[in-house]
């Protein structure tokens, strides 16, 4: 058990989440990918706190990450709800106005 192993764990969670966020069509599934990426960041932050700099600021970083996750989910669902009400869609491809 050392820093590298924890970082590998974090990287694999982040990579899986990234794959989901890029490949999923549904906005809700895309958000699951984002959450998984944050999950990887939490592991990495905790490992850095333990192995590199055991200062309180490292813990504060995890608190910030958790708030970011909560905000991401709340805003994400609110946007899905709004877009579903407006156009009856919940897929990213159907809400790509800026691309067209």
């Amino acid at each position, binding site marked *: *058990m050392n*820093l*590298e*192993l*924890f*970082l590998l764990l974090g*990287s*694999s*969670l*982040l*990579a*899986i989440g*990234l*794959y989901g966020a*890029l*490949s*999923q*069509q*549904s*906005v*809700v*599934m895309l958000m*699951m*990918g984002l*959450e*998984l990426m944050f*999950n990887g960041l*939490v*592991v990495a932050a*905790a*490992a850095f706190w*333990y*192995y*590199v*700099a*055991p*200062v*309180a600021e490292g*813990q*504060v970083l*995890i*608190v*910030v990450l*958790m*708030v970011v*996750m*909560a*905000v991401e*989910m*709340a*805003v994400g*669902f*609110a*946007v*899905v*709800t*709004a877009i579903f*009400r407006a156009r009856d869609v919940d897929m*990213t*491809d159907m809400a790509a106005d800026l691309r067209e």
Partner: protein
Amino acid sequence: MLTAVLFWLFGVSAVVFGFLVFRLDSMARVTFALLASFVFVACEVLLLGLSYLGVVIVLMMVMEMVIMAVFMIMYMMNPAGLMPMAMYHNKPGAMSVSLGTFAVLATGTFLVDWPESRGSRPSDTTKSLGESLMGPQMLTMMVLGLVLFATIVATVVLATNRGRYDRFGDDLRARPDDPVPGGVRR
């Protein structure tokens, strides 16, 4: 020895359940696979001695994932996975980007010469976190509070479809026309 075994157990489980999130068909199972991944990560955090943060991750993620399940069922086609269907776009591209990211991060992990640990770990991590948040990191805490408050307002504005005039009509002093009455009997 025990911690090493636990590390591998939790770590592999977290990755496997994270992978299952994009493999399972049933949206309910997907949500709870993600929850399992979070809980195993919380176990890793506990293993590192951050007891408060580990337990709070469990607390928050259970609530969050139960709410998430409600939304998943609400918006996804085929919520129970009884008719398997694929909803992907650009799968090879996404796979190569994510594998590339992992390769870069893994290489970096082993190439970077990580510094030695500075300072000693506090005996009471919860206390050190609390003193930091209420002391030098007070500004962070206040900004987080404001962000959360702004989120509450923004999400309610985005998600509600019945504004003030839908509820009250022309006369804002009248009794609201709500489909279900509340318990305070205003």
